[in-house]
């Protein structure tokens, strides 16, 4: 079908401060995966384990928001290498579950996690908050992706349904408008 008429689009994906649930939902398109790889070629992505960009991409799918500086660097690099960036799922769009910490000062979060929590008393006798030049630095709050770079599209859901991801991808790859029926955005 489409492969005869146009070059394959190149896709990259990543999970920042997410749970990989959105990636699982992507895999949940089941046998359509076979159709997908006819349409696209994957570059940097946990799906094929390519760690670094090896070429410029058409579409970047971002799962999760930014909770540390590594997330920020990754997101910026996606923005630099991808023509279109898509925020996939609640965490990328609004910060999601990790952003629950946004109402608590970071110092208190770290203290609870590493110093005062009921389970840490004996396991951290030196009372250290982990820090090392190899560890990412935690941000003051969790940022949704659009507060760091320009995001072109948003696919809502936690995780977005596989069908919705599929429809959105097909629309992006084929350049056809996505038909948003009422049940697409009716969640109750």
């Amino acid at each position, binding site marked *: 079908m489409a492969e005869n008429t146009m070059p394959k689009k190149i896709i990259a994906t990543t999970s920042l401060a997410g749970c990989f649930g959105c990636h699982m939902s992507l895999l949940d398109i089941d046998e359509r995966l076979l159709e997908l790889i006819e349409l696209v070629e994957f570059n940097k992505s946990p799906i094929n384990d390519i760690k670094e960009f090896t070429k410029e991409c058409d579409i970047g799918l971002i799962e999760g928001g930014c909770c540390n500086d590594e997330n920020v660097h990754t997101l910026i690099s996606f923005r630099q290498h991808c023509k279109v960036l898509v925020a996939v799922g609640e965490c990328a769009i609004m910060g999601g579950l990790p952003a629950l910490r946004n109402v608590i*000062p970071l*110092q208190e979060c770290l*203290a609870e996690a590493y110093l005062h929590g009921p389970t840490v008393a004996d396991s951290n006798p030196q009372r250290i908050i982990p820090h090392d030049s190899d560890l990412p*630095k935690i*941000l003051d*709050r969790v940022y949704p992706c659009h507060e*760091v770079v320009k995001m072109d599209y948003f696919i809502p859901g936690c995780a977005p349904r596989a069908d919705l991801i599929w429809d959105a991808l097909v629309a992006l790859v084929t350049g056809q408008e996505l038909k948003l029926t009422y049940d697409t955005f009716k969640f109750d």
Partner: protein
Amino acid sequence: MEKTIHAVINKYNGDETRLMDILLDIQAELGYLSDATIACVAKTLNIPQVNVEQTASFYHFFARAPRGACTVYLNDSVVAGFNGRAAVARAFEEAAGCSFGQVSPDGRIGLFDTACIGMSDQEPAALINDEVFTSLTPARARELVAGLRAGQTVAALKGDRLGDGQNAHPLVRAMVRNNICRRGAIVFDDYQPGAALRRVVAMSSSEVIALVKAANVRGRGGAGFPTGNKWEFARRAPGDVKYIFCNADEGEPGTFKDRVILTELPQLVFEGMAIAGYAVGAQQGLLYIRNEYRYLRAYLEQTLADLRAHHQLGPSIAGQAGFNFDVKIQFGAGAYVCGEESALIESAEGRRGEPRDRPPFPVEKGYLQRPTVVNNVETLCSVVKVILRGPEWYNSLGTAESKGTKVLSVSGDCAQPGIYEVAWGLTVNDILKMAGAQDVQAVQVGGPSGACIAPAEFNRKLAYEDLATGGALIVIGRQRDLLRDVVLNFARFFREESCGSCVPCRALTGMSQLVLEKIIAGQGAPRDLDRLLVWATLMKRNRCGLGQTALNPIVSTIKNFRGLYEQRIKAGDDRFEPAFDLAAAVQDYEAAVAVPQE
């Protein structure tokens, strides 16, 4: 406490639709509405506690925690800002020893911000225990706090600085000034109370409506709905019990005409209500007046009593058996959205001021589900004069689509802020000349929900067919930072005043404020302007006028002053977000791990 609550509720016969009055009276006695008070009110009225809670939490003059023995509500409107509000606020804070939003450590003085209190021609102004203090200076603020600390009463601090006209009336004794700069042919022309009523009783109700229709009187609140039609709908609506409401909520920042009309000509307003009652077949009227004008209460009550004594209200008005009409005064408690007629009715019934879905319209199902006419103060004044002088005379004033006069509230950067009653059809330039405004950067026409226009449009006419307005003109001088001093203030105002019922209004008033702040801080991206304009189209989905117009300050300034936005927006690569600062975002973490932990 329970005794007080029971006494107040008994005064209103345990009627839950009087919840606004009940809470206002209880707060006056007890200082604030504690959880225990709310519970007791609910129990006594035998209604769910949440019903009391939602009303108590909706209006900003209802205090859910102590706000000090003396509570200062300092206006934080745009014009107050122009006139030195920041320095006055600082003086209050230093003298009281607390910030705005707090109560002084000794519990004597509470400092709170409030939206426009209808004194834009004499700012900065504050309400202190319901008394109005105008033209404040830092020195005066310090003096007031010292006086309150020393135990002086608010009335004593006000002293003999009384305003002109009826502001000096023994029952008003306010330092407020009328500043009537121009008297027009209708509202502020000669007036003999009762003459129109005598004329009306010689006519049938349909003749009265025909007269109002022939004069093409249109609602003066801003929307311009034909008054005769509204009355006709209500008259034809089935039911024996109908109501006439006068909307004196006047919450549009920069508007203060109703305050002056109700100070100088309350009889005229009440006579207009009685005429509406006669035309519609209503026996009960209600003046819904904003709590900011509470200082007029005794005076207005006395006016009503006098009118009853002169048979201009009450049973058999003007000697006509069967023409019975009386007026009750209902105070609001601080909520801009209550100027919207269905929200006003909800509020008068004791609930949150949340606009209703329409249809049904209030003329079919309004107050207590009965047919209800809601008219603006000025509309009712116009009707009285139409009755006296006839529709031909009325039609000779104004323009093709806009007959009669408009009372304008002019404020901001001009030599003579105040009230100007002019025939419809004058240009913005005409008004600026009258008010002595020079070097004008922009004029906000119709308050925040209206339009902010640039000098190129100052030749436009004030009329329903061109620049429709509820009457507020805020003059913005060249020296102002339009985005920071005006647009951002309006954005905050709408965010604060959104009732929260419709999602676009609830979410986008807040989001657009954040984007605006980002742009003002020099962190805007070019796409931010497009975002704001897209959001403005979504706002049209909101239920009421507040929500539909809440982004107007932003939209009309992007349209008319786009350069001011573009100057502040970072040029360059639009793919990244200029407001995000990684170094700042990791600062907390670096601080947390830098110190050896105990």
